[in-house]
């Protein structure tokens, strides 16, 4: 099922001719550190669209972990670095909803009393997009030619869903993957219990929440849970693996780059 025709017209959508020849990738620190294959998948996706991926070598972290934990001075230091690295880029694409939320909304709070940096952060924020949002809303594509024979369920990450309003885009993309069957789990929009330092400081509460999420994934009958944020996926997979369940946690970029099921199941 390709849902591109059913999607409402988006004012952001650019006609094919106006597509930039390249995007700039903010890999995101967790992807870069723990899941480099997710960033590789992003490169593959854009290559299929005939677009190059620029990857500023000085990039590190957007500052979100410190910001969410309350350490604003430290978060500002990381945010300033991010702005310096990306302020001359074109469209910036990131395979993480919560980091895009940080750049778009967190920076405004962080630099509220600093007009200079606030203006600079705004200019970067305007050009920063979450991956699925960029593909569907800006480029107007849902079918990326991917194939994966599997029953999948989708987890809505909190900042992605409630912060950026991204809900239909990933589902449309998954729906267009050949062979993929998307089943909705109960409470797909409920938090998985990650919450950054919360997961470390309040492990009992955090994993009670994750356990509920995993139960819903199991009940959906899916073989894998797909998401747009590796932070949630890392958390969900952590419990899945501890419980020795035979379910995968897959970042959407890898699904969209897949040529067949084995690309994801045996990689």
């Amino acid at each position, binding site marked *: 099922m390709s849902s591109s025709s059913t999607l409402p017209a988006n004012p952001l959508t650019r006609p094919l001719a106006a597509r930039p020849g390249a995007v700039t990738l903010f*890999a995101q620190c967790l*992807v*870069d*550190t*723990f*899941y*480099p294959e997710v*960033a*590789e998948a992003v490169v593959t996706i854009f290559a299929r669209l005939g677009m190059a991926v620029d*990857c500023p*070598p*000085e*990039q*590190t*972290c957007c*500052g979100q972990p*410190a910001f*969410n*934990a*309350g*350490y*604003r*001075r*430290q*978060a500002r*230091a*990381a945010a300033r*670095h991010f702005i310096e690295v990306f302020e001359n880029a074109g469209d910036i694409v990131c395979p993480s909803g919560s980091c895009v939320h940080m750049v778009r909304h967190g920076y405004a*709070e962080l630099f509220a009393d600093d007009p200079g940096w606030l203006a600079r952060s705004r200019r970067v924020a305007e050009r920063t997009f979450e991956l699925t949002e960029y593909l569907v809303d800006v480029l107007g594509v849902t079918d990326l030619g991917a194939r994966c024979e599997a029953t999948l369920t989708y987890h809505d990450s*909190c*900042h992605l869903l*409630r*912060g950026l309003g991204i809900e239909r885009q990933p589902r449309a993309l998954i729906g267009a993957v050949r062979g993929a069957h998307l089943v909705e789990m109960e409470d797909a*929009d*409920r*938090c998985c*219990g*990650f*919450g*950054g330092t*919360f*997961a*470390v*400081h*309040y*492990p*009992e*509460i*955090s*994993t*009670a*929440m994750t356990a*509920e999420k995993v139960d819903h994934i199991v009940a959906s009958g899916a073989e894998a849970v797909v998401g747009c944020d590796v932070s949630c996926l*890392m*958390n969900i*997979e*952590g*419990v899945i*693996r*501890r419980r020795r369940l035979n379910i995968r946690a897959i970042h959407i970029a890898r699904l969209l780059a897949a040529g067949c099921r084995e690309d994801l199941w045996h990689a």
Partner: protein
Amino acid sequence: MHKLDPRRYRQTARTAIGDPVLQGALANLQHRLKTATAEAYQALAEGPGLRQIAHDIRRRAIGNLDTLLSELAERITQNGGRVFFAADADEAVTHCLDIARRHGVKLAVKGKSMVTEEIGLNPALAAAGIEPVETDLGEYIVQLAGERPSHIIAPAVHKTRRQIGELFARKLGIAFTDDPPTLTLAARRALREKFLAADMGISGVNLACAETGHMAVLSNEGNIRMSTTLPRVHVAFMGMERIAHRLVDHDILIRLLCRGASAQKMAGYVSYIGGPARPGQSDGPQEFHLIIVDNGRSRILADQTFREILYCIRCAACLNVCPVYGKIGGYPYGFAYSGPVGAVVTPLMTGINRAADLCQGETLCGACRQACPVDIDIPRMLLALRAKLAAGDRDWDVVPAHPAEARLFDFWAWIMGRRRRYDAALSAARLLQRLLPRENGLLRRLPPPLSGWTESRDMPPVAPQSFLQRKRKRGK
């Protein structure tokens, strides 16, 4: 039961998570109300956008609080009522006790009121030899059991039918049953006697109206109406923020309050009270007192960052969707107010350092804001509270809560400032993780301060090469 204390957040939460009965009850409550409330907003004639209009109504009311309150006080006084502004819990309680003493009160019936929980009215009444009787069924159950409410609107949500049946058998001397209608009837009989014998009625206020000089009280059991009309003296307690300017504002706010609280279009009973019975009126108390409680609210009002929490109309919609509340229930929050709203209000009213766990013990998932009938941005305020805990704050008497963690984040910021340092940190992590136990490629145990993660979760190791390192290699 332990005394409520937000410093015991983690322990109390752990107990709650380990209690299967409570887990079932919480899941039930949230399951029932989450979608129903969202649908109730959708079904509003004005659409869910009414929440933003309500937000603006509340913003304007809180911005003009002083004028609105004096208008209200003037109207109530004109109508023969008496108004007292209590600076803190002590003043509010003492004033109520004075009234009770003047009238020789022995028995007081109470309508559900969180502000009286907040100021600790019941224990004070009991200590003064006055029997306070809660008349809301849920509150009555909790009171009989010697407990505290664990939810703002559904105070006995943590108790099962069976537990209530056993409690009633013990306390009301009826034969054991877990049939809800029979139990309700037993409570009604017991309460009826109290209503008729009471010398004083005590209630909260859902929302006052400055323009008309009334206070609206809502219930589904009719008990508040009886508490406020049968006894000869009525004392109403009101948090000083619970006021709207005009009656048309009430139309919007009360419809939203009922939807947020219980997905109802309107509560079963809505009363507007403006003073004591007029000469010749057969209903209503001879004396009416309104106690307007500050108890830390002025301080919140003065801070632009937190003023928004005063827009709250205590509907509990945020509790009903919060994934953390759904696991831990109301007690860990350690105060009258629980869930997301409690996580903001309690630190501000009882001390930010003391309630540090409340500021930090959430995931910032944003479900509360989406459910809030007046669109209060709770995650923003949680972040602001965390910022105060991280750096300290003179105005709010906050000392830095985690100096060691602050140093770690200093180091983290230094690393994030240069890719070279970031790469070096990755190399160091790769060396260190060799020492850690693995299973199927994942790490089984992390050292402190990250050990919490692996208590019940595995962790992926740092990849042999980061994405940027791979790219760099390839580029060469």
